[in-house]
């Protein structure tokens, strides 16, 4: 514990700015992944334990598209779309078979997908870590703001993640598609009885959730080394976010992601050896005092 250092940091504008943006960077990447997990759970009532693998595939896909096109924006978009399509296939071929099954069966299917995708990544891209490198358009000196340091790419990451989150929220809340999805989440058979092909909407939701993971992978690719199995650690954190925010709540995922991001950035100064412990402690407190999560509704 070094609470003196934390207090010194909080009392310095430059440190606060740097750590705040650092927390936002960590949080927004987590948000993209957690929002996919929570969207899929909220509508389909399944926990996609293979979501980390979709993030990994997104990063590798972005790397490949970048080698082919040389354009980071095309690569990021391509990766999100590719993983979205893959997600639809995953849902139709495998996950749709275990709807209504117990969690263990869903876990088994997802775990199989995790193992298979890790091995496929090894076969296709090799076991050695890959690095995309910073795209030339972002190879700029860091921005100075009130004495703090903000890398331009990270600013782009934060804004891109927020824009995607906002778009997702608008689609779910303000469109006909969103209305049907929300209705299907509450009573699928009734929506089906109205002549709407609910299965297509389920597949679409799974695809959107997967595309979010793919987009997160693509955003992470320039700054994280790509390795088989890279999705596992981020999956654990995204589950913490989902539990704190409330299963099924996108707003909850957003708030919880920021809480976790800031815990990590300021925790690394004040309690560097207990950052994970604090994250789990927050989760435990939420589970004790509000088991449905900060913004979640009681489980149906």
């Amino acid at each position, binding site marked *: 514990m070094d609470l003196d250092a934390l207090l010194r940091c909080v009392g310095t504008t430059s440190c606060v700015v*740097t750590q705040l943006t650092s927390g936002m960077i960590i949080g927004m990447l987590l948000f993209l992944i957690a929002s996919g997990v929570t969207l899929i759970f909220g509508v389909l009532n399944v926990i996609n334990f293979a979501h980390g693998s979709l993030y990994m595939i997104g990063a590798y896909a972005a790397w490949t598209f970048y080698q082919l096109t040389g354009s980071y924006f095309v690569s990021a978009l391509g990766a999100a779309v590719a993983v979205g399509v893959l997600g639809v296939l995953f849902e139709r071929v495998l996950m749709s078979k275990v709807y209504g099954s117990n969690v263990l069966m869903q876990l088994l299917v997802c775990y199989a997908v995790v193992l298979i995708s890790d091995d496929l990544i090894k076969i296709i891209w090799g076991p050695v*870590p890959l690095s995309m490198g910073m795209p030339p358009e972002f190879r700029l000196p860091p921005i100075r703001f009130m004495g703090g340091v903000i890398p331009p790419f990270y600013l782009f990451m934060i804004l891109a993640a927020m824009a995607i989150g906002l778009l997702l929220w608008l689609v779910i809340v303000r469109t006909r598609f969103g209305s049907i999805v929300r209705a299907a989440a509450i009573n699928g058979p009734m929506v089906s009885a109205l002549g709407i092909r609910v299965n297509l909407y389920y597949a679409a939701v799974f695809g959107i959730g997967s595309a979010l993971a793919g987009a997160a992978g693509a955003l992470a690719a320039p700054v994280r080394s790509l390795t088989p199995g890279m999705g596992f650690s981020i999956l654990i954190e995204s589950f913490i976010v989902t539990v704190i925010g409330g299963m099924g709540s996108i707003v909850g995922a957003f708030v919880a992601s920021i809480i976790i991001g800031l815990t990590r950035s300021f925790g690394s100064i004040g309690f560097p050896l207990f950052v994970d412990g604090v994250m789990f402690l927050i989760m435990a407190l939420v589970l004790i005092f509000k088991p449905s999560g900060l913004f979640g509704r009681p489980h149906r």
Partner: protein
Amino acid sequence: MTSTESRRASRRQVLKGAGALAAAGLVGAPAISRAQTGAIKIGVPTILSGRVAILGQTSVGGLKVVFDKFNAAGGINGRKIEMVVRDSKGAPQEAAKVTRDLINNDKCEIILDAEASSAAFAVQEVIREIGVLCIHSNSETSSLTADPKLHVPTAFRTARQGIHDAIGGGDYAAKISKAKGLKKWATCSPDYAYGRSNTAEFMEYAKHFDGNIQVVEESWPKLFQPDYTEVVTKLLNAKADAMYSALWGGDLVAFIDQANLYGLFDKQASFMVNLGDYGVVDQVKQFPQGVYSGGRYNRTVPATKENEEWYQNYVKTQKHKPTNWSWENAVAAEFVVEALKKTNGDTNGKKMAEAIKGMTLKSQFGTKGSVTMRAEDNTLVDYIIGYGVSLSKEPYVADFQASSWEPIFELEKQWKKKQGYIS
């Protein structure tokens, strides 16, 4: 199930286990004697998956270069060497299991432990029980061979040792810090045995040679941590004059990529013991220039014909560039081959250990053209240690300054006394 049934089942399990053990004993003995006439099987537990899979890949490459040559020359008494490589993922319990399997099921007669320190200590304990020859070729944590409590007579180390790098590196860092007035230091190393001990030792000797140095910030990211953002910003906020890091492999690649975004290397002098290795320089897209880099493997260090030939042969046969782990494993393989010649192909752990103890090998990786397996603690000495300055293109490390071994031996002895390893 009732408690009586539970006890009955338990007794059955014990009897079955005893039966299986007896059967394994009966079957196992002739299997080993059979093995003396077939290929000499050498087990290699290592990391072949995850972010540091390059460790396993280039370790196996280093071993293959030597064993392929040995086999091409006919082996010994008609017996050739066959490597059995297994992935432990760097997990201690998995490494211990894999090592047992290699010896008991695959009938390996020798273990070349190409594990990182996270798992090498677990392998050491398996070797203590079973007694085959083992050479740790990658673990640099000093205590593995320096601590007499951990000593295993049939276990050796060809990996460079943390304390050696620390003394040589500390001396080099102190000279720079005195010249440039680098008083406030920060550290950033992986949070496990190697990272902790390596960093503590480096800073201890940097302070030993320059009393003005003080550590103002320490960061301990987890091994294989994907995101270093909070670590980088913490280092920025520390406003240190210099930083030391023992990050390595894919972790180091990710750290550099993320630190570059904040311009960290422009704000302070950086000393990175594992930077100038091909596995890292080939992966980092914006390789930082002017960082003080420890000597790992480089085709120009030493700048000799033998080293260049070894490099070319390695690339040609293994289809990738060698790393620090490649030469450490190549040296381990050379010791095994020489010991086999001395024992006339007998792989008995004790006989092989007697042959290797104190052995000096001609090697281009040695400061004087040779390396020695020091008898007193079964560890390699006289290999090339030093630091240079990073370049963003070939040869990636310039102005390499090799450390002298005499002061290293002297200070290592004092360090061992301080640790209570010798009296």
